[in-house]
């Protein structure tokens, strides 16, 4: 992973993380939004401008790739590079979780 990608995407925003996480299977923007709402009991909702902008940026940076179009909706999926970023993030969050569970001494 080049340092520019690392600087932009590690650590990631919650929005960015969920979008990348959902794109492990091909999905379109609105579908991602619905999945995220369900996963977070409605606590994380992503607006269309933010969804569109984030997808466009991730596609430009090579984290996701356009697969095909369905009823005017573009479907994307994660790339190798995106996978690498996602795994790095998951490891970071796991560490965060572990440390916070152990308590402060």
């Amino acid at each position, binding site marked *: 992973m080049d340092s520019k990608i690392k600087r932009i995407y590690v650590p990631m*925003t919650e*929005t960015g993380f969920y979008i990348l996480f959902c794109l492990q299977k091909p999905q379109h923007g*609105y579908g991602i939004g619905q999945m995220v709402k369900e996963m977070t009991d409605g606590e994380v909702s992503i*607006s269309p401008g933010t969804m569109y*902008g984030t997808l466009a*940026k991730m596609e430009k940076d090579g984290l996701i790739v356009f697969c095909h179009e369905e*009823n*005017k*909706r*573009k479907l994307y999926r994660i790339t190798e590079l995106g996978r690498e970023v996602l795994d790095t993030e998951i490891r970071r969050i796991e560490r965060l979780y572990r440390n916070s569970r152990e308590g402060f001494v």
Partner: protein
Amino acid sequence: MKDTKTMLRFYTIADFREEEIWLREEHRNGWKLTKMRPPCFFRFERCEPEDVIYRLDFKNFSGNSDYFQMFADYGWEYVSSCLGWLYFRKPAAEVTEENEGEIFSDTATKLDMIGHIMKTRMLPCLVILLCCVLPYLCYAVEEGDAIGYVVFFSVLSVAYLYLVLYCGVKLFRLKRELETGKY
């Protein structure tokens, strides 16, 4: 009673939030926006008074079907576009949580839009000011052009300078408010 009206209102590139509030008020008074005509003509149609939220996105493209579909899926009706601005609206009654009334849900993408306005609108305006307007004014003064002409051109230059400064300061302030979490 007339069923349509066209209003001329000047909003700078930094006044999009004021513009959103004004359009919402018009709709509440029974006038819904139907079309924008450059540079700043707003065409309205009489309608049932309703509380409708208006939001502007700045894209510098006339939009593609995928983009409009995304907004439609989220319940935003596309109204019109004008000089890079895209106008969307959604009835306030459909908004059950705060984010549903916004087209941007995080700071990064709000900042991206302001950055985009600065880069594609402010920068060219500044370049025109520094490379054309001011040098030409100096040239006219030095050459001793007709006083009426120099005064006329000076007034224009000052107005231009004021607008560029006004937009620059306002956009910069918006950016700072976003970065410090005050907006």
